[in-house]
């Protein structure tokens, strides 16, 4: 034949490789990962959906921080951690910025992932993409990372904005510890978003309709935000009732309640936030999510001890994220690719 075929010898090395790679899959499972991340991130950053959410978060950041600054200026300006109060100070009728983040971050995360997998099926691009030399692993992780990086990008931009507003408004630069604490707070917030991202990813694998996946994700979020606190209290009262009214009984009920509360990622996040942004926090015994500010007496903890205090929360958030991602992974691996 006149024209040479480009790879006439591939069959030989292939057969020898076959023996080596008999059991395991060939190549890295992450081949093509960055191509997926780059494409999906570009999609996120140009989507109308993200524009709306960015606008929303910008609005709340601006509003709450300006309000907080007024509050800070009108009170004693002796606080060592005045920058951190930008995040935590509430000025009626607005809650503090961290309060807003508690529900804005899940919203953004869910918006980033609820149509990640089913969207590819619905656009009938799934089989075309998976017919390229990549594994499903790379596609799923790529989608997760694209969401996480987008979230990180948005939150970092907001963080910079707040710090900038703080420098201008308060007229002092932040101390090293303030920067460190607020950066850690940023990291915790991103990890908190990771949970909701992974959850939305699970639902986007389970449900073919993006709207169903979004609703299911929001239902879980509402459950933990609104109902779990009530359920936890009822459970604690039922399991560890206070019959006589001894201190022991009260403590045991409170402990159980705390454990139950921490099943909710919201609680983990709020506690971690409190630990980082209110340096005087020594334990989370009686702090409730609504009591973000005030009520904590005593000297501030060194940064290392604050981090140690919230370390379990951080690992908890990451662990749940990994579990949810693993679930999405298993579900996705089993799916038939016919679209």
């Amino acid at each position, binding site marked *: *034949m006149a*024209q040479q*075929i*480009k*790879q006439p010898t*591939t*069959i030989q090395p*292939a*057969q020898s*490789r*076959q023996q080596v*790679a*008999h059991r395991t*899959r*060939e*190549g890295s499972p992450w*081949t*093509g990962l960055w*191509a*997926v991340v*780059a*494409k999906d991130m570009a*999609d996120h950053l*140009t*989507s109308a959906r993200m524009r709306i959410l960015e606008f929303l978060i910008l609005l709340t950041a601006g509003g709450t921080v300006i309000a907080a600054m007024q509050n800070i200026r009108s009170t004693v300006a002796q606080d060592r951690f005045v920058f951190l109060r930008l995040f935590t100070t509430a000025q009626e009728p607005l809650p503090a910025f961290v309060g807003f983040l508690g529900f804005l971050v899940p919203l953004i995360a869910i918006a980033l992932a609820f149509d990640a997998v089913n969207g590819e099926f619905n*656009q*009938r*691009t799934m*089989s*075309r*993409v*998976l*017919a*390229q*030399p*990549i*594994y499903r692993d790379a596609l799923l992780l790529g989608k997760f990372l694209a969401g996480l990086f987008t979230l990180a990008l948005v939150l970092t931009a907001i963080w910079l904005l707040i710090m900038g507003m703080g420098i201008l408004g308060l007229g002092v630069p932040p101390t090293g510890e303030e920067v460190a604490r607020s950066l850690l707070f940023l990291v915790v917030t991103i990890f908190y978003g990771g949970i909701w991202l992974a959850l939305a990813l699970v639902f986007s694998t389970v449900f073919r309709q993006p709207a169903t996946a979004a609703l299911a994700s929001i239902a879980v979020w509402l459950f933990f935000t609104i109902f779990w606190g009530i359920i936890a209290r009822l459970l604690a009262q039922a399991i560890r009732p206070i019959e006589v009214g001894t201190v022991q009984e009260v403590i045991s009920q409170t402990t159980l309640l705390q454990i139950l509360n921490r099943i909710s990622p919201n609680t983990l996040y709020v506690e971690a936030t409190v630990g980082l942004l209110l340096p005087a926090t020594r334990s989370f015994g009686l702090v409730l999510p609504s009591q973000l500010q005030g009520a904590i007496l005593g000297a501030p903890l060194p940064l290392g001890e604050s981090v140690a205090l919230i370390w379990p929360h951080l690992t908890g958030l990451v662990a749940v994220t990994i579990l949810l991602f693993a679930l999405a992974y298993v579900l996705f691996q089993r799916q*038939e*690719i*016919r*679209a």
Partner: protein
Amino acid sequence: MSELVIETHQLTKRYGNFTAVDSLNLAVRKGEVYGMLGPNGSGKTTTILMLLGLTEPTAGRIRVLGFDPVRQPLSVKARVGYLPDAVGFYDNLTATENLIYIAKLNGINRTEAYHRIDEALERVGLSHVANHKVSTFSRGMRQRLGVAELLIKQPEIIIMDEPTLGLDPEAARQFLQMIRELKEEHITILLSSHLLHQVQEVCDRVGLFHKGRIVLEGTVNELAQRVLGGAYRVKLQAEGDKQKLAEALQTLPGVVNLHYNGTNGSGEIILETTQDLRPEAARAVVEAGGRLQTLSVENPSLDEIYAQYFEEVDHGAAN
């Protein structure tokens, strides 16, 4: 050339109790165009998905270019281009952007990718809409974009699942022309289709799928021989003694069957033959004292083979 590039051995896929592909032995040679035919649900798409490593076989062995799609899916997918039925693209991206993503997933570097994309879009006639959003594309344009994607991958094998579905006749014709061009570049092509005359036009060999098995395989002429008896139809009209003419024609070597078209005496005589017997038929008519008026030959049509085969199957099933 008879090097096998696709080979399956006792390939089986079960969904629960249902066997979608049943001990299939498929062999496709290098450089040929192989057509997969068969009724809906006969296992064509399932077979294709297994060849690409997108679905795991329940049993059996597959070799694609010497690779096992189960263990070495990346090697297979790097060398095989796939155009799914009802191909979809990212509507929010342009044609070029869609192709860049595919090029990146294939590890093609940027400059090379742009070069190949320009070339491919030119070839499928989409250069003028290269920077238009795919959401504005018609079905035919999407299909052509799918071919452009195959081209930038520069595959050794191309697998297409019902590629001409929903194309207008002109677009389908262009599509078949594209397939012929690819064949000229020695790319092996496996395609499934329900449009039999199109399959007949481009395929070197066809395999007829039925209930997860290949029940018939070969060139169209071979199939015709097996199913219809004769592969060619020589049609002629002649004046003369009907009886004598029929006798003379029927005894020609290679004639399988003779019948008349229409009921009245002036009808056409149709000979089912194993070869093109026009010269022999003409001489026989003359020797029998007849006057030949028209003479033509018709290649067997896949439509007929298909219809005849499944008629027999249904008949067999009814008994």
